[in-house]
């Protein structure tokens, strides 16, 4: 029936220069088509490294030590750049936190989308440009026929993020990795982008890995949440279940620590007992 879009088995990631340092310890992760998984963790938990490694985009100082990553039944670990280049775009794509640094500032937005399209498909420039305009329209960029020739700095933060989403989905990937895509945006803009992603993902039947430190945000978008901590996935559950009955003490601490609109202002957020039991935060 549904073959998993992503199968990660016993993945170990560490520093290239120091074999004693391991950053991700034997992670297993499966995603089926159409599933949205939230990868929630604090900074240093390894969640960004994990998502970058799935794309084969981990920094040169980092290496995948062992394990397997299969995207749409293609193995990613150990493959060379050429192979991965072909795989990216068609099977998987990524959107990042800061659209300004992931869009080329000296080329027009349309140009970059066209480039992305033509990297994976034999298509004429004219056809690719038409596709780019359509894409911009579908992500909610106003007046796409004109703005397609604008430069990234001519867009607002939220619009740039939409452009990046357009680029990412241009080749109809099966898996979309979103690494803190809304962290740099205002709350109202964030809500609109989440709404956009919600619609796009549904329309195109994409699977999503949504990496974030904000468990409430993950809960608003994802059907399943994997909680990551210090290089391991400590808990994975469907969203509603996780929120209602978290099993791991770390998850419980996380949920107790966040402020919701129902949190009682008269009581401390995290009891010292809970905090101590978790050895998280900044317990020295």
């Amino acid at each position, binding site marked *: 029936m549904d073959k998993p879009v992503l199968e990660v088995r016993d993945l170990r990631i560490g*520093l290239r220069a120091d074999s004693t340092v391991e*950053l991700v310890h034997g992670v297993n992760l499966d995603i089926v088509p159409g599933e949205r998984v939230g990868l929630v963790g604090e*900074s*240093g938990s*390894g969640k*960004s*490294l994990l998502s970058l490694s799935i794309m084969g985009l981990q920094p040169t100082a980092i290496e995948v030590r062992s394990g397997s990553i299969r995207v749409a039944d293609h193995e990613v670990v150990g493959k060379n750049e050429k192979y991965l280049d072909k795989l990216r775009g068609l099977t998987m794509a990524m959107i990042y936190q800061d659209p300004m640094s992931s869009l080329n500032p000296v080329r027009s937005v349309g140009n970059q989308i066209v480039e992305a399209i033509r990297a994976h498909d034999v298509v004429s420039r004219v056809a690719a440009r038409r596709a780019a305009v359509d894409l911009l329209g579908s992500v909610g960029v106003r007046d796409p026929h004109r703005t397609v020739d604008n430069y990234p700095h001519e867009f607002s933060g939220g619009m740039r993020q939409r452009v990046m989403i357009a680029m990412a989905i241009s080749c109809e990937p099966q898996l979309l990795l979103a690494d803190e895509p809304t962290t740099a945006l205002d709350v109202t803009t964030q809500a609109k982008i989440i709404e956009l992603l919600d619609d796009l993902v549904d329309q195109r039947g994409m699977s999503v890995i949504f990496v974030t430190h904000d468990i409430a945000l993950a809960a608003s978008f994802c059907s399943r949440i994997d909680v990551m901590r210090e290089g391991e996935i400590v808990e994975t559950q469907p969203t509603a279940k996780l929120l209602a009955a978290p099993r791991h003490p770390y998850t419980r601490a996380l949920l107790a620590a966040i402020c919701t609109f129902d949190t009682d202002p008269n009581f401390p957020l995290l009891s010292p007992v809970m905090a101590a039991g978790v050895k998280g935060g900044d317990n020295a």
Partner: protein
Amino acid sequence: MTTLKVSSRRSLLRAVYDQPSVIVALGTILFIALISAFSPLLFPNADKIDAPNRLLPPSPEHWFGTDELGRELVARMAHAGQLTLVIALGAMALSIILGVLWGMLAGSHGWIEEVLMRTADAIMAVPIILFALVFVAAFGSSPEVLIVILGILKAPLVARVTRASTMVELASDYVRGLAVVGLNKRRILFAEILPNVFPVIVAVATLNIASAIMIEAALSFIGLGVQPPLASWGTLLKIGYGLIHQAWWYALIPAIAITIVIAAFNEVGKWLERFLDRRVA
């Protein structure tokens, strides 16, 4: 992203270790500095005139040969090296003192910045020889004057780097916090910002030494610099150049020495620049 915390001292040593050329450069500088510093002890008879043995080529008895008065060239080189290095280091120190004050003032006081920086530009635009000529004509060419000339010539460069660094620091968060605590501008600049600016200055300063050696040698070579009876490598080069047909080694040895020392300081300075750049970024 995991942050890797490495102690700064360990990373400095590690970085040096990784670059053999820097080790060689540092070793060379140390070697020459020690020989020059201890030249009175190592070569006590540098001034022994031995006319019959004048202009002998290098040999096992006379390592660098002898000069026009029969003195050991090795000894002369060692003593001259002392003067060369002292002038260069003095110039470097002066350039730092002047340049840091200059740059910090320019970077923190908008109203005076234009004046200061355009003056810096002006000094950098003046041809070195012309500048030196005017100064020497007015004040003579003792080593002290030379230090002042070279110090002034090199200060604008330090000022530029300091100004840029100061402006970056002034825009940082921590400076806001300091203002709220109640520190005045002067205190912020000298007690809090200066320590952060200094590493970059060190890199520029090292390059300045190389430059100062070069300029001093050039000035001495054309007769504007160190005058006899004092000798620097530049003056030895000048004399040797005059005797180049009779004593090929007399010009070659100072030339090589100057080249090696400049290259060594340059190597260390450039590496420091790169190393500090990485750490700041």
